């Protein structure tokens, strides 16, 4: 391109020179004309003098018949002198004229020669220019880029063929500002303004924008232009190249998107995520890991992460990595330090390796999932299942035992059936209470008492009935292990009262009073007082099972102190046993 530019300025210079020669020629011609005018004027004067010289003496002779010969001779000689001077002047002038003419001819010849020479030069240059222009165009069609040229004002003057092939614009369309019509509407305004800004500043121009193809689809291009400057450093014109970067840019964009998605996923998920090289050498840890463990990313790199593991689990973690290198997925079940709670929590760590075509590990991508709650729940569940097993089997044993005892105490099967029915119902009620406790409710003494009494008599809201008065603090909690036996004992007291005691006749009355005896070991004291029963001893033998429960089972099993006696008005029983305390 600079070559073509040199040629163009060379032509301009030659044309200037031609112009100067032409002006010089015109000046010379004018000078010639002036000389010719001078000569003509002198010739005219000469002619006039000659005529005067010839005609003068004749007229004088006619006027003066006898002119003095001497005066005439004087005049003639005077005239002759003038004539001679004039003639000499004429001769000088003529010589000058001839010289000027000769010089003019020479100048003309020189001028013609030089014009001819310059014309030849110009033709040569033009020919060379055409040749180089042709090879330049050939080059522009060879490169995949679109090439263009603008004038110093940023108006497009030329586009290479490939531009037209791609955009489908006609030859004139992109010139001036028409190129912007092919730019994506979203990019157009900025492309135009940045281009004009570059033109104003005279610096290079670079921009990525979308250009519409002849098929109507847009592709991404990189435009790059540089100004061509004159000797004074002023941009004379611009040359630009437009490179298709679509696939590259789309690829990059896809990569960026996938990177964003990865980050979003990784930083949004509850798992702690990390990347590692083979051998468990971490290269990256997610923000969650850092926040969770309190271990910086720096400190976690390489095998620094191992320090977040429970000391007892570190060997296992290392062994898991050794196995993973042998081609298996990585699995670590171990405890990881939780900085906020200042304790270790159970984690399940899994990682898979990304491998290249040769099967070499590129990197490991791993997640560590907090399974502590699950582990705790599992442990809790195991405890519950074991507890349930224990309780069920124990209950079966109790049922068996109660049944045998009832059988022994029954006079016949009818008696047995009634008795066993009630006792099993009492056991069932206790199970109901205990299962309610598992829903988060503690079993309290008042609850147990009301439950048992209401199985025999209709109680009001406060737990009283016409023949029953109860009195004592609510909310005295019972340990779960004592509820069953205690309930069975209360059942025996109640059922005996209904069958033989205070609740077996209209004159009877039952008072149940209790209090909490505070101290280092809180104790519950219950007094069961029956009134209005005078024939109690008649049925005393029937209550063997109940008495055994109260007098032997409660002390043995619950560490209770009990008294059971037949007073003059009926059964008097007191039970004092350790409890958990009031409320919870």
């Amino acid at each position: 391109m600079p070559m073509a530019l040199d040629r163009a300025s060379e032509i301009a210079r030659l044309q200037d020179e031609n112009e100067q020669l032409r002006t010089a020629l015109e000046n010379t011609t004018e000078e010639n004309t002036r000389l010719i005018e001078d000569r003509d004027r002198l010739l005219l004067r000469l002619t006039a003098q000659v005529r005067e010289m010839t005609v003068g003496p004749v007229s004088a002779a006619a006027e003066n018949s006898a002119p003095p010969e001497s005066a005439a001779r004087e005049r003639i000689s005077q005239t002759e002198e003038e004539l001679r001077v004039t003639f000499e002047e004429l001769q000088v002038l003529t010589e000058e004229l001839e010289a000027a003419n000769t010089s003019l001819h020479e100048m003309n010849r020189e001028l013609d020669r030089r014009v001819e020479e310059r014309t030849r030069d110009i033709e040569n240059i033009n020919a060379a220019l055409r040749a180089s222009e042709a090879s330049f165009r050939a080059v522009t069609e060879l490169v995949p880029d679109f090439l263009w040229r603008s004038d110093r004002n940023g108006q497009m003057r030329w586009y290479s063929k490939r531009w037209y092939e791609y955009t489908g614009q006609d030859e004139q369309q992109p010139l001036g500002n028409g190129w912007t019509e092919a730019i994506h509407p979203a990019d157009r305004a900025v492309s135009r303004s940045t281009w004009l800004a570059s033109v104003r500043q005279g610096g290079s121009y670079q921009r990525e924008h979308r250009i519409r193809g002849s098929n109507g689809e847009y592709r991404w291009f990189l435009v790059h232009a540089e100004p061509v400057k004159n000797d004074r450093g002023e941009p004379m014109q611009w040359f630009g190249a437009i490179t298709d970067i679509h696939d590259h840019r789309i690829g990059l964009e896809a990569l960026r998107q996938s990177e964003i998605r990865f980050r979003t996923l990784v930083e949004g998920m509850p798992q702690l995520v990390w990347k590692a090289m083979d051998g468990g050498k971490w290269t990256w840890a997610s923000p969650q890991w850092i926040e969770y463990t309190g271990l910086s990313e720096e400190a976690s790199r390489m095998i620094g992460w191992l320090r977040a593991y429970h000391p007892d689990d570190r060997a296992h973690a290392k062994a898991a990595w050794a196995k993973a290198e042998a081609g298996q997925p990585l699995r670590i079940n171990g405890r990881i330090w939780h900085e906020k709670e200042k304790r270790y929590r159970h984690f399940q760590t899994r990682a898979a390796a990304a491998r290249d075509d040769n099967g070499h590990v590129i990197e490991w991508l791993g997640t560590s999932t907090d399974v502590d709650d699950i582990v705790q729940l599992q442990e809790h569940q195991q405890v519950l299942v074991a507890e349930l097993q224990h309780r069920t089997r124990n209950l079966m044993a109790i049922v068996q035992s109660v049944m045998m005892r009832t059988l022994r105490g029954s006079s016949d099967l009818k008696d047995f059936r009634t008795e066993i029915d009630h006792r099993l119902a009492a056991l069932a009620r206790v199970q109901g209470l205990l299962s309610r406790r598992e829903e988060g409710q503690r079993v309290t003494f008042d609850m147990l008492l009301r439950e048992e009494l209401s199985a025999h008599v209709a109680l009001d809201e406060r737990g009283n009935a016409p023949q029953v008065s109860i009195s004592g603090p609510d909310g005295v909690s019972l340990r779960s292990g004592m509820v069953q036996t205690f309930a069975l004992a209360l059942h025996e007291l109640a059922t005996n009262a209904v069958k033989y005691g205070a609740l077996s006749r209209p004159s009877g009355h039952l008072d149940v009073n209790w209090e909490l005896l505070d101290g280092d070991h809180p104790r519950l004291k219950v007094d069961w007082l029956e009134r209005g029963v005078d024939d109690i001893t008649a049925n005393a033998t029937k209550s063997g099972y109940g008495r055994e429960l109260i007098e032997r089972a409660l002390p043995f099993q619950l560490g209770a102190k009990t008294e059971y006696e037949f007073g003059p008005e009926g059964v008097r029983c007191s039970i004092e046993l350790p409890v958990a305390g009031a409320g919870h």
Partner: protein
Amino acid sequence: MTNIDLNGRRILVVEDEYFLAEDLREELSDCGAQVLGPVANVKDAIAFIRTGGIDAAVLDINLQGELVFSTADELRAQGIPFAFATGYDRSSVPQRFADVPRLEKPLKARQLAELLQPLVLDKLRSAS
């Protein structure tokens, strides 16, 4: 009724459920044993063992929420044979007691007597 004779051997019953403890006591007595206890908690059980004179023991595993294994350790330390009577499945028994005979509730005292007899006899033989 039975050809099992525990022959006056002193057997400690550790069981917190009164009725079950009583049933065991009764039936072991029927088999000729001299029943010690029953006791309902670890503290009483260990006190009994340290007093001495026990030939064998039967242990409930869960005593009012308290596990009986420290009692088992004490028995083992003294070379006294014992068996577990439990509602728990095997996984809740520590590995070190994997070889200890276990009877599941509801318990048949006769099974227990059959189980205890050779243990008691072995102990007698090794002692003599």
